[in-house]
């Protein structure tokens, strides 16, 4: 069928010189039938509509902070989404699913054999060196199997079409499959950008896959676990796929844990939860196998847990995927799966790979060398050497490669290139056909595997590229066939237990406390600068006026708060501008905001998704170039608005558990300290002017209360005295030190620390002794007391495990 509405976008696409092979959208006879709705949408949007959709998708990515790469090391890039989904024919998908199911069952059997009897090697079905020479084969994992169920719990495979349009497997990625989180977030964004099309397309939903994964992980727990606890072992927020890890953990409902959060004791794995240890039954492993247990594998790894493998060996914990699964990520293995399928399943594989020759076999090596310019040359182990396209080689490079193949043939294989289909990508010049790869995700369920409907699509960076290495994502749509997957029943009944309040690991507690502090620091500094700037705009030319004295006093407070020093002769407004925008000074508002956002990356899974659009706005505000004539006030208002929005999210959408308590405590202690320092700086002197006191009251959001009370006669009329009373010991003022200490005590009780809560209470009692005449020394002592309380809090709740060392001796030997 062809499309009648004609903006001509599709005709132009079909006429594109690179639109020559199998295309997902349009075949030789026009738009493919199952793509007709998409085709109509494309035509009705036209190029300008498509570009608008692309920009809108970009906006959502920015708002949600979807990144690939390390957000902490600032090497991250925004996730890139093309707005056009790839729609797959549901009948074709059903076939592909059946084929993937067979393949997953096969790989599970292969994995089991390779870590038990190795019959496949002994009977020479697979050459032994293909497996035993692969660094992903972990001998320490020998004979560690699940007590029940499948060895290979999760699967991920990259698929592409050959020139006939048939799906083939390019590679398997079972090491620590990631990407389902990206697929989900891509769906969420594309479904909003293409809302009309999405509404009328009845699609197979993605959420069910995560439910299946949750069920599979819980079911994989060792038998002794009545109420299994699962953690997602993460290499940390500095890892490239940190976003996917925290997103997936939120979908699954399991906490993210890093090495410092876990330990082994008495042969079991435990989560450091507050001051307790809670047993862990299943580890969803996002840390590469060789890094996951420094006792058994790479001793320099800081990402793993010593004793993890032993706990798995003794059936105390299930690791998914098991350590050693990476041996299946092996292109040479693809060349043997046909006989392997016959040997293990008695079936021919439904899904095959491009012809592959393992160079360890002399005849295959000769073939690969003779056909080098038609083959893709891959190392057995991903990442140990670049993938080489034979036809791109210079003569010299070719000779060099042949020498390497001959020297260590067992480390290499040659593979026929896969043509790959194309899919349309929105560009400013129109739709461009780019090569398309699909990563399919599976999880063990019932007698087989269940798959994420569709998966994560990716397209090449340019039309010319024959391989897909870019991270331009495509949502993949599978129209629902009316049959809804019934939710899978768990393999065994699970009691519903009212859990005690969730306790967080010391690392997480410290991060949350830090975030609370960073947010408060950014906010209080912004407020202070705002008031100082206001005074500077009004009084900077009149040097002896009370206004100028107040300005000087407030500027001194800004210096003390930010550590940013004014230059001689620098106009005050320019100085204040630096105190806000100079991200190079660690105390500036900009730097505080950066610290806040960076800190939040470490506990992404605990924060609402709305946080990221607020942070995005905050970062954009502070990154704006301020023209010399522009006023600082509107920018500060924007900053404060973002910070208030963040505070609103915390107060409105976080459950009052210990996570929230640590976050709140960080803000409370910081606000108490800031206020004490500000008062010390500005109001110690009984002669401080009324305008200074009023400015301080404004900076602390208490000026209205002061005016109301002084007018009604319920508070001191003298502004300095009123400021001291209101900001130090008035329990009802949410900006007072007294209020912070009471809230801190409540937070500490929520955390379960009665000792420190009592200390916060008694510190509150002492506030009543505030000497109004000469409060300077008293405020200094208070600041010290607050710092001491903070230090005790850290020492009781944020302590990491001791530094890890590898002890091994080498270099002796008997000589008779």
């Amino acid at each position, binding site marked *: 069928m062809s499309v009648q509405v004609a903006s001509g976008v599709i005709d132009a696409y079909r006429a594109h010189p690179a639109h020559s092979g199998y295309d997902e959208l349009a075949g030789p006879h026009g738009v493919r039938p199952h793509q007709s709705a998409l085709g109509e949408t494309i035509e009705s949007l036209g190029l300008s509509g498509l570009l608008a959709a692309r920009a809108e998708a970009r906006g959502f990515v920015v708002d949600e902070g979807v990144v690939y790469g390390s957000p902490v090391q600032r090497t991250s890039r925004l996730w890139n989404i093309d707005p056009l989904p790839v729609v797959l024919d549901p009948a074709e998908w059903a076939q592909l699913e059946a084929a993937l199911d067979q393949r997953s069952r096969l790989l599970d059997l292969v994995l089991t054999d390779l870590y038990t009897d190795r019959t496949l090697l002994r009977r020479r079905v697979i050459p*032994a060196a293909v497996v*035993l020479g692969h660094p992903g084969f972990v001998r320490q994992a020998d004979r560690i199997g699940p007590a029940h169920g499948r060895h290979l719990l999760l699967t991920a495979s990259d698929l592409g079409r050959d020139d006939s349009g048939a799906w083939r497997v390019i590679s398997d990625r079972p090491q620590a499959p990631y990407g389902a989180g990206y697929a989900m977030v891509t769906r969420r964004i594309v479904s909003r950008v293409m809302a009309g099309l999405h509404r009328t397309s009845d699609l197979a939903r993605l959420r069910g896959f995560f439910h299946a994964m949750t069920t599979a992980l819980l079911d994989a727990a060792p038998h002794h676990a009545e109420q299994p606890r699962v953690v997602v072992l993460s290499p940390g927020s500095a890892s490239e796929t940190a976003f996917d890890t925290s997103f997936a953990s939120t979908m699954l409902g399991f906490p993210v844990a890093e090495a410092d959060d876990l330990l082994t*004791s008495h042969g079991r794995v435990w989560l450091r939860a507050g001051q307790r240890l809670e047993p862990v039954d299943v580890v969803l492993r996002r840390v590469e196998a060789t890094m996951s247990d420094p006792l058994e594998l790479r001793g320099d790894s800081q990402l793993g847990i*010593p004793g993890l493998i032993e706990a798995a060996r003794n059936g105390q914990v299930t690791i998914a995927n098991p350590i050693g699964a990476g041996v299946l990520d092996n292109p040479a293995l693809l060349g043997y799966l046909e006989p392997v399928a016959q040997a293990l399943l008695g079936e021919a594989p439904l899904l095959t790979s491009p012809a592959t020759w393992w160079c360890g076999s002399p005849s295959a090596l000769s073939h690969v060398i003779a056909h080098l310019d038609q083959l893709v040359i891959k190392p057995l182990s991903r990442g140990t050497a670049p993938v080489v396209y034979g036809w791109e080689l210079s003569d010299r490079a070719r000779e060099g490669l042949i020498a390497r193949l001959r020297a260590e043939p067992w480390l290499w294989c040659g593979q026929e290139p896969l043509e790959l289909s194309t899919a349309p990508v929105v560009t400013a010049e129109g739709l461009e056909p780019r090569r398309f790869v699909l990563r399919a995700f599976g999880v063990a369920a019932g007698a087989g595997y269940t798959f994420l409907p569709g998966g994560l699509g990716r397209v090449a960076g340019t039309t010319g590229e024959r391989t897909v290495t870019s991270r331009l994502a495509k949502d993949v749509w599978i129209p629902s066939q009316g049959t809804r997957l019934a939710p899978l029943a768990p393999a065994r009944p699970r009691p519903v237990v009212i859990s005690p309040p969730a306790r967080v690991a010391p690392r997480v507690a410290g991060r949350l406390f830090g975030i609370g502090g960073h947010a408060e620091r950014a906010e209080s500094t912004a407020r202070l600068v705002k008031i100082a700037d206001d005074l500077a705009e009004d009084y900077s030319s009149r040097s002896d006026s009370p206004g100028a004295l107040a300005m000087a006093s407030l500027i001194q407070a800004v210096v003390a708060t930010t550590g940013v020093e004014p230059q001689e002769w620098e106009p005050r407004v320019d100085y204040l501008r630096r105190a806000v925008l100079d991200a190079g000074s660690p105390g500036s508002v900009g730097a505080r905001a950066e610290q806040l956002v960076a800190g939040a990356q470490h506990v992404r899974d605990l924060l609402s998704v709305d946080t990221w659009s607020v942070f995005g706005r905050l970062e954009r505000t502070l990154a704006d170039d301020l023209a010399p004539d522009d006023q600082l006030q509107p920018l500060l208002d924007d900053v404060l608005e973002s910070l208030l929005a963040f505070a609103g999210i915390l107060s409105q959408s976080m459950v009052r558990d210990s996570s929230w308590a640590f976050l709140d405590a960080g803000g409370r202690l910081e606000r108490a300290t800031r206020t004490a320092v500000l008062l010390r700086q500005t109001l110690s002197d009984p002669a401080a002017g009324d305008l200074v006191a009023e400015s301080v009251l404004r900076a602390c959001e208490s000026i209205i209360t002061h005016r109301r009370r002084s007018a009604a006669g319920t508070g001191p009329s003298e502004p300095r005295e009123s400021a001291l009373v209101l900001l130090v010991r008035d329990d009802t003022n949410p900006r007072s030190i007294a209020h912070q200490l009471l809230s801190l005590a409540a937070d500490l009780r929520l955390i379960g620390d009665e000792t420190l809560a009592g200390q916060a209470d008694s510190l509150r009692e002492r506030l009543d002794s505030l000497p109004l005449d000469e409060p300077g020394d008293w405020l200094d002592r208070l600041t010290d007391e607050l710092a001491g309380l903070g230090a005790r809090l850290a020492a009781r709740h944020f302590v990491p*495990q001791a530094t890890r*060392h590898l*002890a091994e*001796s*080498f270099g002796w030997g*008997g000589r008779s």
Partner: protein
Amino acid sequence: MSRRRHLVEHLTRYRYDAPVEAVYNRGFLRPRETGTQRVLTSELLVRPEPDQLTEHLDYFGNRSTYLETRSPHTEFEVLCRSTVEVDQPLPDLNRLNRHTVGQAARELAEVGDPALLADFGLPSPLVAIGDAVRAYASAVLAPDRPLGDALAALSTGIHHDFEYRTGATSVATTLEELLTLRSGVCQDFAHLAAGCLRSVGLPARYVSGYLETDPPPGGEKLRGADASHAWVSVLTPALGWIDIDPTNAQFTDSRYIVTAWGRDFTDVSPLRGVVYTEADQSELTVEVDVTPLDNP
């Protein structure tokens, strides 16, 4: 040499200048049963008392010990005390010499267990086979040389070409570096011999164990003077695995006690640990005693 009985005591002690919070260990300390070695008794004494001590037979059939100690301490000690009986005859060189090096490699490739051939025939983390190793090997392990003579020549050759010197090498020393340094310890020589053998197609494994040393002439044997030892074992078509000690230029006999074997040191490190501590200094003491018992 006839059957011999030995008492082997292997003590490892760490002392720290600040408390250790936790220590995890993987050890290959207990002798293993072989065709020529029987383990009569074996006990493992750990101080402080470990929270967890588990053992299993590993991938290579070695007895592998896992220790976990989370009680705070500044001194940590592991003593393994075993009695073993060894009856290891010297190999029949004439039978080995019925194959040349090349014939042996070809025959093994055809009939050998493919998993064994791959495990012990391919390079491994500490046995990388580069041009220098190939060149060194080709001089002694020529394809047409009778196998027995070639193996003896490999052993005496390394002994002759390399100086025995502790401290010259570390666990990070590559075979290429060793060939330049021309000095090292038994682990290095075992790795080199394994690399040479694998480079000509003969599967070779790294063997970790002990050697009963003779007291200095006229002297009493000193306590703790013995050491862990390492040598190499090569697969032959006629006699199966043959053990060669390049450090001492000899085939092994009943004075050699086997604890474990693997592809190289990394598979069978006698005691490896991960320690959680803020201590700056640690002091390691290793004492090994191999005492002859009344021989049967």
